[in-house]
């Protein structure tokens, strides 16, 4: 049975929501004044977004989504273009190739796995920026950013889980 036009539109809109929500979170994180001082440590918001959807609904955010989100992040944050895109897509790739490990696992396991993925991601990002711009980021701020990223995950995961329930509801 071929889907009607309305169904196609509905599907497309649903597929855009995870990306739209991630973009909104990225913008919220850089709007001045909303963020208490500690957020200036720079948590990797986009990594959390991409990770959540890759683990729970990989069909909802593909590589193109990860690429675009990374590109926007690099432009907004003034980091070398392409670096965040690469890191986000590698994160998606790692999760997707280990899909059997992730499927149906409790939250604590995915959080623990995130600790590993995020560690790899932040180190790779620091390395890529060091190679491209020739400066090495001090370890202190890197650790702060890493810890903050991990601490933010339960909150973001809750928001995304709510969204996921809404998205899977039949119209």
């Amino acid at each position, binding site marked *: 049975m071929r889907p009607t036009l309305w169904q196609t539109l509905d599907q497309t809109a649903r597929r855009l929501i995870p990306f739209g929500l991630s973009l909104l979170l990225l*913008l919220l994180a*850089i709007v*001045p004044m909303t963020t208490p001082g500690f957020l200036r440590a720079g948590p990797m918001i986009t990594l959390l977004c991409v990770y959540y959807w890759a683990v729970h609904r990989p069909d909802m955010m593909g590589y193109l989504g990860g690429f675009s989100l990374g590109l926007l992040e690099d432009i907004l*944050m003034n980091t070398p273009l392409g670096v965040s895109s690469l890191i986000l897509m590698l994160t998606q790739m790692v999760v997707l190739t280990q899909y059997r490990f992730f499927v149906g696992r409790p939250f604590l396991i995915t959080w623990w796995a995130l600790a590993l993925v995020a560690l790899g991601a932040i180190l790779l990002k620091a390395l890529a920026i060091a190679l491209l711009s020739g400066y090495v980021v001090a370890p202190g*701020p890197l650790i702060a950013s890493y810890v903050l990223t991990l601490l933010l995950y339960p909150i973001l995961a809750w928001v995304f889980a709510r969204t996921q329930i809404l998205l899977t509801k039949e119209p």
Partner: protein
Amino acid sequence: MQPNGQLSRFGAMKVALHRLAFVVLVAAAFGLMLLGKADTVLVTRLSHAVTDALAPVLEVMSKPAASVGAVMNNIRELAAIREENARLREENQRLLRWQTLARQLQVENQRLRDLANLVPDPRPRSITGRVVADTGGVFARSLLVTVGARDGARKGQVVVAAEGLVGRLTEVGARSSRVLLLTDINSKIPVVMEESRARAILVGDNSNRPELAFLKAKAGVSPGDRIVTSGVTGAFPPGLPVGVVASVDEGHIRVELFIEEGRLELVRILDYGPDGIIADPGPGAAARAGTD
């Protein structure tokens, strides 16, 4: 059997497409890195287009955020209003004494300037912009402001807030610009110790306190010393307040800035006209060189 076979073929095609997308996009990411490194017009245009498009969105988002922040501040201030009042009264008295002194000095300064036929420093026009994004982070530190080329902003212009120097414009789009903060790892500005007049370079390293480098006489520096811009290279006007020395240890001097980077709402962009800070060498050039 037939539909099943079709399905699996469809599935295999989907997987292949998915892999192809990954390879193509990773190649694109590497391509972007190379393009960005070459600093092409294309990349600049792309980032200007994105920041110009997102600046109005960020502006709308920042307004409720600012009001929430203001309410929180009000509550915090109400709690300590009594002590604050007493402190302000005392400070007011002290400032009044300073004001008297400043008036006397202003008159005296004016007379001396007249005597020496000093050419006054160029007075800038300023453009005020709202800060719509504070991308302070681990890898880079900058602000996005809602002032662009159509408002007269140009690359390299100096950005200040009420408390002191903020940074300078590094990218100027049509409607938005990027301010490179003093704490960014790419920021290096010539400064001078206000008391001793010793020159140095303030070098950012993405931490909250930039470092004072290339200072010859380190011995005399102690926490609390004020630092202002030196204007040596002509990129910054001399005498803009920057910060105070926060700590001195083993040759590393850290500076606490006057501005609070996370709390800036409005900034002023100083416009010295098309000639910049260093005006055409005219009749007054010799006199100016003598006073620098």
